[in-house]
């Protein structure tokens, strides 16, 4: 149980960072929408889970936030990537690609490759 949420949090954090990297400052709902658009299911329900992740990233210094006005002209909290966050994103992107590549190769293995 715990592990599953950890993995989810980890991937979610990476998605948040990437979204902010590509789209610039966004409020929570905006981030949720983008992630939903790209990942489909992940945030179709339980959009709320995003907020603890945002808080964690902010406390780590990867993002920061300030109040701004939303589309319908109400007060909303806008998040944006910091310098640290950008570095973290780069490092984690590389990690992910490496891991994905290795796992990918494992899935492609056929019995004759190992003999």
């Amino acid at each position, binding site marked *: 149980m715990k592990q599953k949420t950890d993995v989810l949090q980890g991937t979610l954090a990476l998605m948040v960072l990437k979204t902010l990297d590509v789209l610039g400052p966004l409020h929570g709902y905006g981030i949720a929408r983008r992630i939903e658009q790209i990942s489909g299911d992940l945030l179709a329900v339980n959009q709320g889970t995003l907020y603890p992740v945002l808080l964690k990233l902010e406390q780590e*210094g990867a993002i920061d936030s300030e109040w701004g006005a939303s*589309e319908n002209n109400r007060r909303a909290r806008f998040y944006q990537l910091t310098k640290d966050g950008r570095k973290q994103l780069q490092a984690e992107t590389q990690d992910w690609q490496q891991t994905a590549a290795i796992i990918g190769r494992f899935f492609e293995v056929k019995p004759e490759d190992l003999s």
Partner: protein
Amino acid sequence: MKSLKRFFTRLFNSAARRAQEERLREEIAEHIALQTAENLRAGLSPIEARRQAMLKFGGVEGMKQDYRAERGLPWIENLLLDLRFALRMLCKSPGFTAVAVVTLAVTIGANSVVFGVLNALILRPLNVPNAHSLYAIERGPDMAVNHSYPDYRDLRDRNRSFENLAAYNVTGVGLDTGHNPSSAWILETTGNYFDALGIEPYLGRFFHASDEHGPNSAPYIVLTYAYWHAHFQDDRGVVGRVVQLNKHPFTILGVAPPEFRGTLLIVFPDFWVPLVNQEQVEGENVLEARGNRGLLMVLGHLKAGVTPAQAVADLNSVGSYLEKTYPKDDGHMTFTLARPGLAGDWLGTPMRAFLTGLMLLAGLILLAACANLGSLFAARAADRSREVAVRLALGSGPMRILRQLFTEAVLVSLIGGAVGLWGSVQLLHGLSVWQPLPTAPLQVPVTPDANVYAVALLLSLASGFLFGAVPVRQVLHTDPYQVIKSGSTSKMGRRISIRDLLLVVQIAICAVLVTSSLVAVRGLVRSLHSTFGFEPRNAMLVETALSMAGYSADTVPAMQKRMIEALEAIPGVKSVGLVDRLPLYYGANSTHVFTDKTADLLPANAAAQPVIYNISPEYFDAAQTTLLGGRTFTWHDDRNAPPVAVVNREFAGKIFGSATNAIGGYFKRHDGTRIQVVGIVEDGKYGSLAEDSQPAMFLPILQSPSNQMCLVVRSNGDSQQLAKAIKSTVQDLDAGLPFNLVSWNKELESALFPSRMATLSLGVLGAMGALLSMTGIFGMAAYSVSKRKRELGIRMALGAQPKEVLRAALGRAVKLLTFGSAAGLLLGILASRVLASIVYQATPRDPLVLAGVVLAMSLLGLLATWIPAQRALSIDPMILLREE
């Protein structure tokens, strides 16, 4: 770095909770508003749009929980909450809290005191550099710590394992710094003593091996810091000053650093003097006598990389060389290493055994206290089962509730531990400055250090968790539905519960303690009434050494005779006798003796190793030692007369087979002297009160002179008056002679000191154990009566007689008590074997002790169940049944 930053942010957030909560609420509201707007655009009805938005957002409360957990440090927040709650709960039941805190304070305090002493005397090494490689050398199968000087010299020069070997000896001297001659305790050491230990002077310089050039060549003094401070008022000009030691000029070389107080942990000397000056210090020089083993103790640092086993092998090879080369003097020269500080294993072994035993008992007491508090906590948890049930029903996890219970237990134990530690530190500081014996330089330096504090903290935490763990099972098995429905979990089952078991254990522990303290007290009483071989009542002692006033071997006998005659002339004095060393004080000299037929006088052929006393003719009279046959000495038994001896019954039995054969018989000393036995006296106590009968022989002072002397002044008069008269008489004879005047009874207290201390500490622990088990039984009985009130009421209503009610209410408590006491008594009898080494005649197979234990335990049981019994009997079934 990142996690540290996060930690501090979270710590900060824990403090500023409100503002954050507001921000999250606003963000959620905005998120849902935006989603609703989106849904509206998609064509949903307003209500449905909002519903969908909420659904999509997911569980708000669960998310908030995650958010909060992420934001702050939940465990710290919860801990603070638990602490606050625990404090509130404890304040709500001050009686319970007070009992728990006091119990813990007393038991943890007792443990830290015992540990403090153990730590200071056994665990803490001597305060010298590289103490871990410092060892004392012991000889032979008896682990003797004393060596002769020539043996020491051979060991020092022939071994290859020690960096250096130093030797030292404790003795008393007279010191005259210009006014008021006084006696002082010193360590006589070899010249290399300070260098071998690696000590640097605080002031001036130390003496070295290079200062030794034969007898009396190094008249130097190195003062301890304490003596310099007390007697020279920190005067830095003291270096180079010449003072009179036993009327010989000695130069003060320097002062040792304050933290170095010699190489015996409990003996604090006043200063150090080179051993080569033995003649001036002790009145005679016996350094070159290989067979003379005084009190010279040897120690040194092992070379780097040499293991103790290698060192022992090395010493043994030197030993076998010594055995071969000096067969007359050196028998059985095998060696072992021991920790220095407590005179090797001589004091070390009994001390270690006693302190370990005491520590064990103190630990048992703490366990008993934990058992006690555990059942109190369990009872409390049972009373709180409704609260627990409600919390469980509201969704609190069992872990959360257990954490709360543990917080409460640990809080109590920490408070108790802090109080106990405070008390024990006071006590230890008091002990450290206490001088148990007025005439000896004994001190018990047990100042607490970090170890003591750490152990107290550890014990508090451990006991908190221990007794906190008792109600765990009970809480985990709480069924909220049942509890709330039926009111309480009053299942006073017939099954044996943990609580019962704890109580039995506790009573057993208490019975062990009561048994051992009774055994000790009995032993002490018996030792006070046993025959010592002398009568300490109505006798005063004048202790001195004539060497302190500069008397030489030729003038000593005349002076001694003059002193005896002068004291005998005091009105009220019945007789005055002289002995070189008082029995039961500072141990005794012993020597090998041989039967008359033995030709080869090797130590291995010795018939006995009796203790020797050199006495004046009237000694037996003054000491009131019974002469069983033959005659005592006269002043004509001098150097011109044939050598004679009076021996005790044990000696006579060992050498001659029986007392009747002994009189007129001959035996030999190791130098070949034939000595005729002229008299037999009763056996006595010579080394310690706990010893078995030992052979002893008495030699006439004129044939075997000694400047060490103790005059026994027997009188039937007022000791106050007599003391004054004795003092002025001695001072009239020689004003420059320092001496101690003390009653024999008082002096005997030092011999009784170890068993007194043992009895006192056991008594205190026994009383504590008794108190604990009493409260334990009381708690159990009271709780069981209060729980079964209704049942008892019904029984009474149905016609049960008081006897039956009592049996129903308290039968269990009494059964547990009986069972626990029996187990404890058995264990106590086993444990008392340890005691026998310290307390005289400590035997648990003593009907009085057994009866005492049974009586004490039943009395305890009676006291503890009295109030609950009254309560059970006073139940009025009418009121009770109407109430429920």
